[in-house]
């Protein structure tokens, strides 16, 4: 958090060959973009396990950005397509968990597209900023609390019926 104003925290998974290199290019070109994104390098966007994405949200990320090579350009032929498939499935699932679609983003960024890294990050930060904090760790705490109180109620015999009716 900077100057007291809330800013989102975004975890990015960038593939080694295209998007990570593009982010290096953005650096070498001294482009300026929002400081909210933390980049984790993987060899291929195909390595991004849906669990990584869920884990990032669970641990407090407000958004997750995945960067891979353009279709047809994957260093490993087709890892990016595998990521696209998982991404489509996740996009169907996440809203049901209360995670808005704009919080998960997949971008094809080639090694030459430093400008696109800048744009994707700034655009994503702006959109997630508008959505506000996701606060999964806090929600987990609330749910744990709720579960605990329900369990307590269920173990108290006279309130058992109420608990079931609920």
């Amino acid at each position, binding site marked *: 958090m900077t100057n007291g104003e809330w800013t989102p925290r975004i975890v990015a998974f960038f593939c080694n*060959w295209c998007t990570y290199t593009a982010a290096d290019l953005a*650096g070498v070109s001294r*482009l300026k973009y929002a*400081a909210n994104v933390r980049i984790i390098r*993987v*060899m291929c966007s195909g390595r991004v396990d849906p669990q990584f994405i869920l884990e990032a949200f669970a641990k407090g*990320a407000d958004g997750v950005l995945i960067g891979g090579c353009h279709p047809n350009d994957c*260093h*490993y032929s087709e890892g990016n397509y595998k990521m696209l498939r998982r991404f489509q499935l996740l996009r169907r699932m996440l809203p049901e968990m209360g995670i808005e679609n704009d919080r998960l983003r997949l971008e094809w960024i080639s090694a*030459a597209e430093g400008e696109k890294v800048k744009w994707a990050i700034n655009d994503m930060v702006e959109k997630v900023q508008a959505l506000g904090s996701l606060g999964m760790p806090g929600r987990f705490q609330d749910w744990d609390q709720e579960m605990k109180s329900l369990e307590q109620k269920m173990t108290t015999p006279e309130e058992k019926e109420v608990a079931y009716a609920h």
Partner: protein
Amino acid sequence: MDNNNEIRIGFYICHCGSNIAGMVDVADVAQYVEKLPGVALSRHYKYMCSDPGQELIQQDIKDHKLNRVVVASCSPLLHEHTFRQATEKGGLNPFFFHMVNIREHDSWVHTDRQAATEKAKALASAAIQRVAYHKPLEMKKVPIHPDVLVVGGGIAGIHAALTLANAGKKVYLVERDPTIGGHMARFDKTFPTLDCAACILTPKMSAVGSNPNITLWSYSEVAEVKGYVGNYKVTVRRKPRYVHEDLCVGCQECIKACVYKEPKFPDEFNEGLGKRKPIYIPFPQATPQVVLIDPETCLQLKLGKCKQTCVAACADRQAIDFHQKEELKQIDVGTIILATGFKTFDAKRLAAYGYGVHQNVYTALEVERLVNASGPTGGEVVLRDGQKPKAIGIIHCVGSRDEKTNRWCSRVCCMYSLKLAHLLKEHSDPATEIYNFYIDMRTPGKGYDEFYDKLLDEGVHFIRGRVGEVTDWAFTPEEEGKLVMRVEDTLAGYVRRIPVDMVVLATGLEPHTDAQAVRRMFNMSCGSEGFFLERHPKLAPVSTFTDGVFIAGCCQGPKDIPDTVAQAGAAAAEAMALIDKKYIEQEPNTAFVDETDCSGCKSCVPLCPYSAISFVEDKKKAVINEALCKGCGTCVAACPSGSIHQNLFEDEEIFKEIEGVLAYD
């Protein structure tokens, strides 16, 4: 993680002069990291990649019994290797090292010092958490096939092939056109020395033709590339020339004998300014010295009806074969050099200059042929309308430094425009006026600016301004029948109309139209302008992101002949370094199956693009062939039981990294 030993991490944050320290409070980050669990020592230092920086790591490993090392500095693509070596020299397995990118991904891209420092802390914290889980690994060794494929037979490909062949390496040189020589073979003279292009190029061309280590396949294209560094399997398509290369002796009797008594069809080598017959040789010094038949214009091939006087002339040599078919050749090579060159900007795209509308507007390459003694006019400057020009205008930067077409400077046009100005003056009436219209004169190079001075003395006019249009509408009687060049003379400060008889367009250099298809075939990247992307613009200018594939010459970006030859030599040396080492070390980032957890579901098997995963029927388990695995990790992410692991990118390592980047608020 080794449970017997306590984790002792050494953390180093680099100032990189002021590159990092100017935007990130490095002392603050070091202080923060010092308190993280497992950190035995945390330092900041001016230049970690310097010798003292690396020695610091080595000494600390010994003095402080470190067993993990984290360096926060530039991109791992730049210095990961350096610090792994330092870690190894300190006595640790090099993979007990992890690198944090706080320059390209942090200090260089942010403007708020506090936010940049916080980001550095988060990234450092992730690395600290992750590195504890690192395992000792060994580099993978892949043997290198000693043969080399060179694609493109311009001066770059020729020089690379000869360098390799002279060192005793076997080279396949594949050229798309019927002859090698590329663009250089069509130039008249070369700047700034004005030595004749053919005189310096053709000896090298014939050296290629006669070198026993070089297999020259002209009129051929690479059709498919499979495999990886050290072991590429390449398919080359040999287009039919309808003449057997091994039987043709280059006597050219067949050309004389052709039923077309006079050359009738536009001659590609002369940019269509001259004519050729359906059976032809591109130019006298073509290599190989073998004729070919153009199926589009040959009566026998087109209509199936001809007296076949060429066959009669060839007589018992029987080199002509109208039934010749395309041939596919398979070769094994260990390394590849791409020297596929460039194409010149299509001048028709700039309608204002009237190329293709006004017949006396020429491209520079056409003028090269026009002033060439062996060109279509025998070196006489005669226009398409048969006139000799009395005034000539040369427009610089056509398709260069222009937001509407190409933004880049093509680097050679100023110099070749000067050269053409000189040659046109030499080949025309001494009273001929020559105007150069330029934006900026760019003459950096040995002897280049001196050449510019010489041209100024020769009385060539230089007008600073981008020409607005070349038009045939006359405003005054003197302009009637002329081409009028409208330009704002930015030094004189007014708009001028200059009537000329001939306009030369100094067209820029562009990537080939099929550059994207070619780069895909070789699994490379292109820059935004479409030229092949080098691994590092300064430190790895001829390497690509694909190991074992090198680039040289204008396919990487516009450059002149000296630079092209230097790059070709560099690419040859890079290939040789691999060949002579006999193997290449590769990241051990391969995947492996933990058989105890594998349920035998086979989900992973079809996912692998390299067919590295197979299913062992008797054990009902998947197994990964390490030699085939390229380390993408797609199978790891897809395994439902979590039984596939990837070295360097283990699940727990990434989970820890996620936790780490989010741990710092």
